[in-house]
Structures are given as C-alpha cells and as structure tokens.
C-alpha cells in the first residue's frame, strides 16, 4: 500500500501549538513509509528550512505551506463582553484558519511568503485580509476551522455553500475541502459527523475533498503535551474552557488513515471503497505541490544588493572595488610598498574568483554610513585579516603589520560565505539599523529572527500554571534550577547538590517533570536577533517571509541565523558593543568638562601607565580582561606590549585553557623554560609566542611551510582537524608531503603532535587583534581619565559585574563619588571637579533612579537649577513615586529638612495639585523647607534606600556596616589577603559579584565566585568535594561568609578554595537579635555530607576531544547579583 501524505501538519514553530520539532516529524514520516510530508505551521514559515534539511536527510519530499488566520468574508457579529475585574479576558482564537500549500515552485513559495508577510501587517493579531487573499501558485485546504467548516459544523450547509463562493472565485480548481476525524463526539471539529458532512458537501458542490489529520505531534500519547501548550497559549489551566486534546492528532501511518477514510465515507453514505478515492484525491493534491528546496527556496545560492546601490554606478562591482582599494593604498600611505600592492592584487583576485565584490562594497557602504553618523564602529572577526577590508576602511588594524592572513577569511578553496562582523556603539545600534534600512530600503533589508525556546525555567512555569499549581511553588521551583535544558530536569534533580532539597519533594508534583521535559527546546516566542541584518537584492520578500518586530517595528525575517545562511542570504552582523558606547561617553565627558579632545583611536601605543594598570590586575571594567579568570591570567602573564594583549585574549578561551597551552607559554615567557621549535624553519611563525601555538594563523603557516600546499589549502586542512574522521586522513597526507619536502620523521612526528593537540582550539589572530584594540583603549582611559571612564561604564553598563561593584572599584581607586542631586546630576553619569587640587569626581546619574522615564529625567536636567522644593515640583513635574525616591536617596537634601519631612511635603504637594489648591507649603527662611518633626532615615535605611532606588550603595560600601561583626569572626579582608601565605586557612566575607560554572579541563564542575568586601575583590573556587556543603548557599545567598584555603600561583595571582559557606545576611541577623551564641549555634550545625560524584562519572565528550562535566558551562541558579535591589533584610521602618 502506498504511503499517505499528510497535507496539514504543524511543528513546534507554531508557537505553543505544535508539540514536535520539524526534524522529528520528518524522521517519523520516513519511518512510517511516507514519501512526502507537508509542513503548515500557524502564521509562520520559520520551520521551513530546518524541515527541508531534515526531509532531505530522511528521504522524504517536503511540501511547504502555512495555516493562516483569515478574515471572514461575512463577519459574525460578536457581543462585547464585560471587562473582567481580575485575571484578564480570554485569548480570542475565533478567527477561522485555512491551510495554504505552495504548489507552483518558486511562484508558489513567493506567494506563500507574501501571504505570511501580509498576515503579520495586521494591527494586533495575525490576520489575512480578504483583499490580499489570493495567489496563483497556491492550493487551499478548507478544513474544520475554516469559515466553511464552521458553517457545516453548525448544521448550515446553505451558509457553507454561500461562503464557498468567494473561495471558489479566488482559487477555482486549487480549492480542496479537508475532512478530519479525531474520534470526537458531536458535530464540532474532529467529529465523525463533521468529516462526513464535509465529504458529502464536497461531492454536492463538486469541490475535491482531501483527508487530513491536522497533525500537532509526531507520536501517539503526546496529547497531554498538546494540552499543556494549549493552556500556555490561552493562559488558562489545562481543561478549563475547552475540551482536552483528542490524542489522535499524530502523524498516523497509511493503514490508520485508510481506516479513518473508510469510517468517514461510510458515515457520509458512500460505499466503503470510495475511501480509496478520497485517499487518491489527497495523494493527487500532494503530487501537484512541487516546490524544490534548492531551486525554489534558493538554498545554496547567493544574492547581494544590486551594484548601483553600493556606489558602483554603471561600472561593474569588481572594477569599483579595485579602484577604491587602490585609492585606499594612496590614502593610507602604502603606495610605495610593493608587498602591499602584491597582497592587494592577490586578494582582489580571490574576491573576483568568487564574485563577492558587491559584498565588500556593501559592507564598506554600511561602515561609511555608520561613521558618518558619528557612531564608533570597528570590524571584528576574520574579516580583519583582509587588506582590502583595511583599505576600504572597514577594519582598523593593518593586517600586514600584525601578520594576519587573508586565507583565514577567504580563499579560492573556501566555499562558504565570508563573514565580516562590525561592532558599533550599543546605545546607537538601532539607529544604525535604521540607517541601513534607509539606505537599502525595506524590500532588501530585514533583521533576523531568534526563536526563544523552552528551557527548564520557562517550562516549569508554563506547565505549573497549566496544572494549576500554587504560583508561589512554581516560582520557587523555577528559580532553584540553573539555566539548563528542559529535558535534563529530572537528571539535574538527581545529580545536582544544590537541588537536593527540591528532589526530596519531587513526587509531590506528579506529571510536572515529564511534561517539563517534553516541552524541551520547543519555540515559545520569537525575538529579533541582537545583531544580524539581512542584505539582499530586491527579491528578498519573495524568498523570505517578513514580520515586524514588536517595539521598533523593524522588518524581521522569520528565519533564524542558521536558516538564513542556508538560504544564501547575505547576513551582516552589526553587534552593539556596550564598551564602545561607554568609551564614547567617557570621551564626550572629558571634552565637556575639560575641553580636552581625546582621540582614543590615535593614542600612543605602549603607554607605560596603561600597562602598569593592566599588570596590577585591577582591570575591572576593562574590555575582555575583567573576569576573575582573566585577572588571574593577566597577573601571571604580565603583559607589556600590544602583542601580549593579543596573546592574552587568545589564551583565555575554553580551547587553549583545556589544551593546557597557558602554562608552557607562561613558563617560556618568564624564562623558566627554554623556547623550543620542532624545526628551525618554524621559528618564524612561532617566535612571537615562545614556540607555543596560539593562533589559527600559526597553524596555517606551519602546514604551509611543512607541506608547501599554499595557505588556502592549509586553512582547509586546519578546519578538517576538528573532525576526528578527517584527522586520520590529514595525518597521512601531512606526513607524506612533509617527507617529500625533506623533513625527517622525528620533526614530522613532533610537528604533527603540536598540530593535533592544537586541534581546532586556537583563536583567530585577526579576531584577537580586533578585540585587543578596545582592551587597550579602555585600560588607557581607566589609567588616565578614571572618573570619565567610570561615568561611561555606569551609564552603559558593560561587562559582567553589577554596577555597585564598579562603584566600589571607583571608590578604591580614589575617585570621589558624588551623590545624586537634582540640582547637579544629569541624565547620564558625569564628571565634576571636586576640589581645587584638580581631582575629578563622579556625579551619579538621574537615569539610574528606579522607574524614572527618559522624559522625566530630561525634564529634571533641563530645569536646573531649582531654588526650592516647590520650584522643583512645579517645573520638573516628577511623578509622586519618583519624587519620593529622589527624596529617599538624598537628591533633594539641598532643599533643607530631613528626608522623611521632604516626603511628607511632597505628598502634600501631590495632594494639593490633585485637589486644585490648598497646597500650603510651610516654608521657613524663604527657600528652605520647614521640618515636620518626623524621624530621619537611619543610616541603614539610607543605605537600603540607595540599593533599592539606585541598585548601588552610593554613600559607602554596604559591607562597612558589618565591620564589627566580621572583626569578631576574624574575617580576613581582601586587602589583607594579598599578604596571606599559600595554603593558609582563612575566613572571607563579602557581597557576591559574579558566579560561574565554566567548562574546565579536568572535566569537573567548579563553581567560581567573586566577593566584594569593600577593600577589594576575593576570587573563590569551590571544587566538587565541597558542593554538597556549599553549592546551594553560594547560588542562593547574596552576602557570603566562606572558609577556605589560600591558593597562590604568582605574585598577583591569588584565589581562595572554599570548603564551607554560610549566608552572611542570616548570621548578621542572628548576631543582632540573639547575640554571638546564636551565631555559634548556627555555625555548629553540621554541613550536608559529601555524597561523591552523583553523575556516576558521566561526562560530555566534546568534539575537540576534552571532557566536560554535564552541568558545567551553565548560567547558575539564583538571582543575578546585578538584579539585587534589596538589602539583606527589610526593616519594618524601611523607606518605601
């Protein structure tokens, strides 16, 4: 019996509707003997590319389609319901849905893209207006959810006949009626009676019927998952409002569908063998739909913007590129250097070979436009290795001088699309997008989608709500998980020490875990990818469906970044880099306050103060070198030149760390180990890194030198190294060619060992050079203009640390922190001359006040100065909560009276404004506000208000309040720790700044954490023997007390290995309320026993060969420290 073709199948890309991934559907279709399968997701084609690839792999012919919400021809009037006082209204899903299949190749696909794009132009919910409802290349299935199907379900064949007329006019012969039987009772969708009516109606109206199954999931038994998805979509608990899923909507095989067809035709009053005709009609409909993934979707072809748009005029793109490059040679002063001309011509040859000239011109055009806007822009990635890019002004660094290779970026042998990423100021990224769209027009530009998929936390929340669990329980469970995949939920419960308490009550929640795991990786929403922009020719909209992004309203392709690459659409990555914004702000501040114009792109290389700062490891806030691991590495490496920074950035990658390239490098650098080369010929490429292979470029050079194969081929070889299969072949090939060049067996063996160990770890030097530039620039700013630097950092919030830590760092480096003041603070952080000695201080910004709107901040800043509270209230017109917050943090202190009195006055002003008059403001001494006799905020309350309103402890470090208690405990401060001996046992305490569980070479899970205690930072490491005792505390407390041993690896490299951890906030409270004995009792409580490795030695084998702990490299549980707004306790009288 020939296979059945499902014409109506949705995947998980139908958000919160489909329960299976397209890949799974394709696999199952192949297993169940089907030759073809359609994917008809709801209002989206986002799954199409994956589906096409999966089908090609499974040997099934893909059909493309979509199930769209269609405007009713005769809208049914609905009565308006009363607005609910609580809980919100039901989600309206009453719009009829119709399935559209692409039939006529590229035309069909283009029609489908157009319809999907149109659907998303509707105001609120997706809707296809009648005016646009047409397409010559489409086949239309009217199923139970269409207006015709609904009329039949309602027992109104007359109305159905009337509604069918417009459909017939538009689509004629391409119209089908779809019968679906899900074994339901009654006459609704999925019922036998409706299916029979549909078939009978089709015969009567002479429209061809087809059989469908409205597939929502691949396998039987997934009905409960569909129920949860329904519940999550409708925002109601499972089973409320509508009946449960029938459990029949799976990808049924041919015999099951034949049985269904027989039941339906019999019920319709035909002979049983008519069922074969129904199936035959279905098959014929499927056979007509011919869309070829390669030819019609455009997989594997490339489309660049038309040359005339990128400044080529009437010349060819290649000619234009060549002349612009030559102009660049003259402008940059390389005209007299032969090597540069040679290299340029070589590169132009390669570009011409691929026909990529318009691509380079496009990127150059974008970079020029961005620069014209006055936005800082820099190229990153392998593109920096091309001299042509440098000449066009795309990349800053001179590739010849830094030894960067074009072949790493593009060669005659590389077939993939080259990729140039550009970094812009994050704060102005959207402006840049708008400029690109203006330049190339919406028909050629679209941003790229990024599906947000279910991971464990969201899955727990949605399933919990669907199962009507207690919201407080749901919240607690969701928050206790690290950010892992949903399918690992139960494994994590078994194995992670910090989840042990939760595992104990696991049984209580019944089906929760199973359902959570079944939601794994299903898309639950779609967002704009933060950096990708599609650039194409004018045919873009016939190749990709586009929807507007929420918020900005940019056109966004429904495809994600991988799909886009497969479709051959040119993607330019425009990354918003906060550090660029921060530096721009710092420079602007210096110019505003001092009049000094700093050009950080032209600062002198090798500035001693900058390198001294870097070597001191006080690099908080510096680009790329601020993490605990990097500070440790910088301390050991002691960089002194720009090249050292490049190496440092390259070494701090999972690969090199895993391959243990760091230690030999450091040893050799400090002269503790001799520098060795496998062969004198290799000295040239390896000299700069003391014989250790760090860069991709070095491998390319080594292979080229040893085999003479040319760099283009060498890069291909390098790529092959990561695949164990091809590695064997390469080894043979390498030995053969190297021997032919006259190298002896031992040299070949040793060189191969280096190449093999290197695998594909190393780092692209072009990338590292591009990174090192802002690293040096930011360190320079920190060394020379610290106040402005911190102002930039705090305004644009780059990096991994919470703002309060940056503030603590500023305080430590002697930058005075000036409090918020409505008469002095601006919208952004500013610098201000503090004393005549010329010290610059940092004035906190209005924009950091919790809940302030941009308009309010601007209004306050514009109205300065204010003479009195009344003046401030009248002219700045702050909202009452905002004014209260400003009073709490002391921004209104200048107006006299204490902060609580000010609040009372503000309330009365507010009341007076509302009541119209009666706003008596008791004034004493003219402009000062009179006291009302309320108690002022206590010192702890002020600090609490600062944390609550600004998320920063602005007036002093919050640890200062605990000095006495910490003294009692004998806690070592970070400053004192610098003198601690190796192996000494110490107590440390502080506020947690960052916690990570990165992948580690040993394959173990290590928790790294950083504490800030006001005198400096303490880096902590917890190894897995201490996890049972510490993991939960470390993840879920903000203030920590830790016992550990000191580890020293260099003069500036120090960390504490934790053995026990306590929640300091809890201890402080015990001390305050019950005295030291209670603290002692708490400390005496036994720590949980170490339970050994609960993963049973399970490790993830990385493709590069090293092992990874299954739970490493995750965003850990607990609240991000940067989110903490509360002090450890909320005193009953706390402000607000």
């Amino acid at each position, binding site marked *: 019996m020939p296979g059945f073709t499902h014409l109506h199948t949705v995947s998980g890309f139908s958000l919160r509707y489909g329960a299976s991934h397209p890949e799974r559907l394709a696999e199952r279709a192949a297993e169940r003997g089907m030759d073809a399968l359609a994917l008809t997701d709801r209002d989206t084609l986002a799954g199409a590319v994956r589906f096409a690839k999966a089908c090609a792999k499974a040997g099934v012919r893909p059909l493309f389609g979509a199930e769209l919400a269609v405007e009713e021809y005769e809208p049914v009037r609905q009565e308006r*319901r009363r607005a*609910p006082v609580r*809980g*919100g209204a039901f989600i309206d899903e009453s719009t009829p849905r119709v399935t559209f299949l692409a039939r006529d190749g590229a035309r069909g696909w283009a029609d489908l893209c157009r319809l999907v794009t149109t659907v998303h132009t509707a105001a609120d919910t997706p809707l296809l207006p009648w005016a646009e409802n047409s397409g010559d290349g489409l086949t239309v299935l009217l199923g139970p959810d269409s207006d015709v199907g609904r009329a039949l379900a309602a027992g109104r064949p007359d109305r159905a006949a009337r509604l069918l007329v417009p459909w017939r006019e538009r689509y004629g012969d391409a119209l089908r009626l779809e019968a679906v039987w899900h074994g339901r009772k009654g006459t609704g969708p999925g019922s036998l009676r409706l299916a029979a009516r549909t078939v009978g109606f089709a015969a009567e109206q002479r429209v061809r019927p087809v059989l469908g199954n409205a597939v929502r999931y691949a396998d039987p038994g997934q009905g409960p998952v569909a129920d949860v998805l329904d519940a999550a979509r409708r925002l109601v608990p499972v089973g409320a409002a509508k009946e449960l899923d029938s459990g029949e909507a799976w990808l049924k095989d041919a015999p099951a569908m034949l049985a269904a067809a027989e039941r339906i035709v019999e019920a319709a009053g035909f002979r049983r063998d008519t069922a074969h005709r129904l199936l035959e009609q279905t098959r014929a409909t499927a056979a007509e739909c011919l869309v070829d993934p390669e030819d019609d979707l455009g997989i594997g072809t490339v489309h660049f913007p038309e040359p005339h748009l990128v400044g080529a005029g009437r010349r060819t793109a290649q000619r234009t590129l060549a002349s612009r490059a030559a102009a660049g040679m003259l402008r940059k002063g390389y005209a007299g250097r032969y090597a540069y001309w040679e290299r340029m011509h070589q590169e132009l040859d390669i570009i011409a070979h691929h026909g990529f000239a318009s691509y380079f011109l496009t990127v150059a055009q974008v970079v020029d436009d961005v620069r014209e806007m006055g936005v800082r822009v820099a190229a990153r990635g392998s593109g920096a290795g091309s001299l042509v890019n440098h000449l066009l002004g795309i990349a800053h660094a001179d590739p010849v001088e830094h030894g960067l290779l074009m072949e790493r970026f593009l060669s005659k042998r590389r077939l993939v699309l080259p990729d140039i990423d550009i970094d812009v100021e994050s704060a102005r990224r959207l402006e840049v997008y708008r400029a690109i769209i203006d330049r190339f027009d919406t028909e050629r530009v679209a941003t790229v989608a990024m599906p947000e998929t279910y991971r464990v936390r969201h899955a727990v929340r949605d399933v919990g709500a669907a199962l009507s669990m207690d*919201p407080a329980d749901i919240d607690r469970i969701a928050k206790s998980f690290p950010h892992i995949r949903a399918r690992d939920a139960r494994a994590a419960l078994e194995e992670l020490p910090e989840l042990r308490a939760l595992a104990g009550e696991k049984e209580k929640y019944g089906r929760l875990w199973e359902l959570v795991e079944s939601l794994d990786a299903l898309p639950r929403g779609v967002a704009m990818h933060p950096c990708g922009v599609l650039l194409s020719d004018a045919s873009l909209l016939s190749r990709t469906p586009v929807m507007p992004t929420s918020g900005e309203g940019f056109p966004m392709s429904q495809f994600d970044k991988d799909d886009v690459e497969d479709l051959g659409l040119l993607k330019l990555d425009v990354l918003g880099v906060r550090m660029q914004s921060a530096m721009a702000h710092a420079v602007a501040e210096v110019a505003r306050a001092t009049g000094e114009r700093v050009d950080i792109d032209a600062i002198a290389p090798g500035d001693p103060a900058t390198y001294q700062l870097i070597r001191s490891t006080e690099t908080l806030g510096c680009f790329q070198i601020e993490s605990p691991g990097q500070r440790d590495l910088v301390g050991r490496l002691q960089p002194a030149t720009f090249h050292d920074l490049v190496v440092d950035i390259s070494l701090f990658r999972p690969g090199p760390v895993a391959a243990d390239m760091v230690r030999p490098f450091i040893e050799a650098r400090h002269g503790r180990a001799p520098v060795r080369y496998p062969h004198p010929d290799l000295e040239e490429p390896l000299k700069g890194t003391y014989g250790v292979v760090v860069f991709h470029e070095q491998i390319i050079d080594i292979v080229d030198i040893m085999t003479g194969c040319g760099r283009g081929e060498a890069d291909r070889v390098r790529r092959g190294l990561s695949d164990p299969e091809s590695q064997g072949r390469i080894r043979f090939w390498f030995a053969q060619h190297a021997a032919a060049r006259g190298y002896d067996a031992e040299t070949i063996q040793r060189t191969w060992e280096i190449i093999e160990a290197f695998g594909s770890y190393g780092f692209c030097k072009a990338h590292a050079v591009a990174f090192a530039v802002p690293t040096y620039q930011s360190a320079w700013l920190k060394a020379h203009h610290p106040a402005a630097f911190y102002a930039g950092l705090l305004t644009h919030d780059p990096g991994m640390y919470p703002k309060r830590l940056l503030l603590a760092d500023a305080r430590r480096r002697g930058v005075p922190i000036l409090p918020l003041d409505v008469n002095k603070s601006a919208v952004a952080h500013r610098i201000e001359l503090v004393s005549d000695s010329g010290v610059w201080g940092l004035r906190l910004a209005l924009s950091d006040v919790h809940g302030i709107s941009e308009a309010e901040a601007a209004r306050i800043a514009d109205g300065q100065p204010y003479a009195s509270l009344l003046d401030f209230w009248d002219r700045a017109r702050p909202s009452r909560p905002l004014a209260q917050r400003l009073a709490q943090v002391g921004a209104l202190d200048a107006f006299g009276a204490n902060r609580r009195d000010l609040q009372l006055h503000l309330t009365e002003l507010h009341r007076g404004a509302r009541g119209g008059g009666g706003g008596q403001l008791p004034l004493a001494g003219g402009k000062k506000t009179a006291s*009302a006799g309320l108690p*002022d905020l206590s010192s702890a309350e002020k600090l609490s208000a600062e944390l609550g309103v600004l998320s920063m402890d602005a007036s002093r470090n919050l640890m200062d309040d605990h000095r006495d208690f910490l003294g009692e405990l004998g806690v070592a401060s970070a400053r004192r720790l610098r003198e601690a001996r190796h192996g000494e046992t110490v107590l440390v305490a502080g506020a947690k700044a960052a916690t990570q569980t990165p992948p580690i070479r040993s394959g173990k899970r290590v928790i790294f954490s950083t504490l800030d205690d006001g005198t400096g930072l303490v880096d902590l490491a917890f190894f897995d023997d201490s996890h049972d005792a510490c993991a939960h505390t470390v993840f879920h407390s903000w203030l920590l007390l830790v016992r550990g041993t000191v580890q020293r690896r260099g003069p500036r490299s120090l960390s504490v290995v934790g053995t026990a951890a306590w929640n300091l906030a809890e201890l402080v409270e015990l001390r305050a309320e019950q005295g030291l004995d209670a603290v002692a009792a708490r400390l005496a409580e036994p720590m949980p026993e170490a339970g050994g490795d609960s993963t049973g030695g399970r490790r993830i084998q990385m493709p590069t060969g090293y092992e990874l702990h299954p739970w490493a490299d995750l965003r850990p549980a607990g609240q991000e420290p940067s989110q903490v707004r509360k002090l450890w306790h909320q005193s009953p*009288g706390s402000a*607000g």
Partner: protein
Amino acid sequence: MTILCVRFQLPPAHEAALPGLLGLLEDFTPVVEALPPDGALADLRGAERYFGRDAVELASVIRVRALAHHGVDCAIGAGPGPMLARMALRDARPGVTRAVTEGEVADFLDGKPVAALPGVGTATARTLCEYGLDTLGRVAAAPLSTLQRLVGAKAGRELHEKANGVDRGRVVPNGVSRSLATERPFTRDELDPDRHRRALLSAAGELGARLRALDKVCGALTLTVRYADRSSTTRTRTLKEPTAHSAALTRTAYEMYEALGLQRARVRAMSLRAETLGPAEQASHQLTFDPTDDKLRRIEEVADRARAKFGPHAVMPGTLAA
C-alpha cells in the same frame, strides 16, 4: 484592667455557637460586646467586686467554664480599656492571660508595630511606615499636627491619643452576632462559570438555612473571590429588603458575580458573608401579585422542615445534586 477581650477557638463556620458562649460571659457581667466571628469584649468593673476576684482570676474561671460547658478553649487579654484589652489579646494564648495595667501602658505600647493598634488598617499602617513611624512609640513622639497631615484631622487626633495610651472606647452590649459566613474552596484553579455559580448557589443556600435557623435576616451580602495568586476581590451589596430567603440571597450573589465579569481569573475559593443581621420578626416583606415568590417561600419552609428531620442534605437544588 477591668475589660477582658476573649477569643474563642471556634472551628471555622461555627459562628452559630457564639451566642451560647456570649451567654456564658453574661453570667459574669451584663456588659458584653460580641466581636464576630469568634470573640467578645466584657466589662468586669462591677463583677470584680461582686465575685471578689480580679480580672485575671475571673479570666481563668471563664476559660474553665467555656471548656466545661462548651468544650471550647479561649485566649484572653485584659486591660484598662477595650483597645488595650484587644491589644493584650494578641500576646495571650490559651492558659496565659495577658494583662496590661494602667502603669505599664506606655511601655506596653512603645515597641508595638503601628498595625497592632485597633483601627489602624493596612493602608494607614503603610502610610505611617513610609514616614518612619513604624512603632507606636514613634507615633506617640511625633507632633500631633504632623500626624494630622499624614492621615487626616480626626484620624490623626485619634491615632495620637491611642498611641499615647488614651483609651476612650467603651464596651457596648449588642448581644448578637452580626454576620455569618461560609466558604466554598475549589481543589484546583477553577475558571468554569457554571462551577462558580454552583458554588454560590450552595453557599447562599447554606447561609439562608443558617439564618432561618437563628430566626435572623440579613441586610447585606458580601462576596469574596480568592484567586490562585492569593489575591482576592470583595464586593458588597445591600439587599432590597432584609431577608433570609435563599432564593433572594442567591440572586444577589449571582448579580455580584456577574458584575465581576471574570474570564481567565484562576479562582481558588468563593465565600459569602451575610451582614447586618437583625431579628426575623422585624423584617418587612414586599408582597407581590406574582405567585412564584410565594410558592418558593412555601417550598423553602417545607424543605427546611425536611432537613430538620432528615439531615442537611435531604433536600437540595437539582444542580447541586448532580
């Protein structure tokens, strides 16, 4: 310290037992004020001399009698005025009577949170805490004018007096419980309006039956809907005429429910409270020419008798039986 505040430990929905317990208090003094659903204030000024014992000793006697006669335990607070007695009750538990004497009033009040003061609701407490007046000691220290600016002239003056221990309240004998309540919880988040209405029907039926058993009528009905996120909505409606008629109560409950227009709200419980109870013989009844109303009342009367004979579930509306 002649005022006692008693809280009986009644199981929920047993307010009907309160009148009996009030009778017990009335053996000691005629000045007893009911604090429904489970408390009472008693003025023992005369009783102390009559029985020759002080208030604390009398409290023990009251507890023993409540346990012996009714099997109900109670906690008792004693103070010079009703307000202080009520506040003292917060510190008391069965067997430990908390007594506040005239002399220690200031110390007693000093560290208490403002919300502990009777008459200070959550809104007032929040306002006071915002301004740092989180304990009664601080409120007492704040200038009267400032308090009046914060919470209004009259409330400010009262607050000022109360915080300073001036207790002007008196025990007003009322003798009757003034409200009856019942709750219908759901085992899961319930969105189905039919189930909601069924819960209301059953609750209104129960309230009506209980009112009629006590020979009372109620003047107003309060509907409280509790949601999964622990929030709730409350609506009160005054009845057209005081009644204990189940059909009238149900109709009013439905009206209040419909006005909420709930759709996706996850309802966890619905409770109804009959308020401003009065004696049934004083209730007026609007006669109509429509015989249905009359029939309903007669059926109700018969059903009540059947229930009295065969138990509360002998007769019930069809929708609830299903």
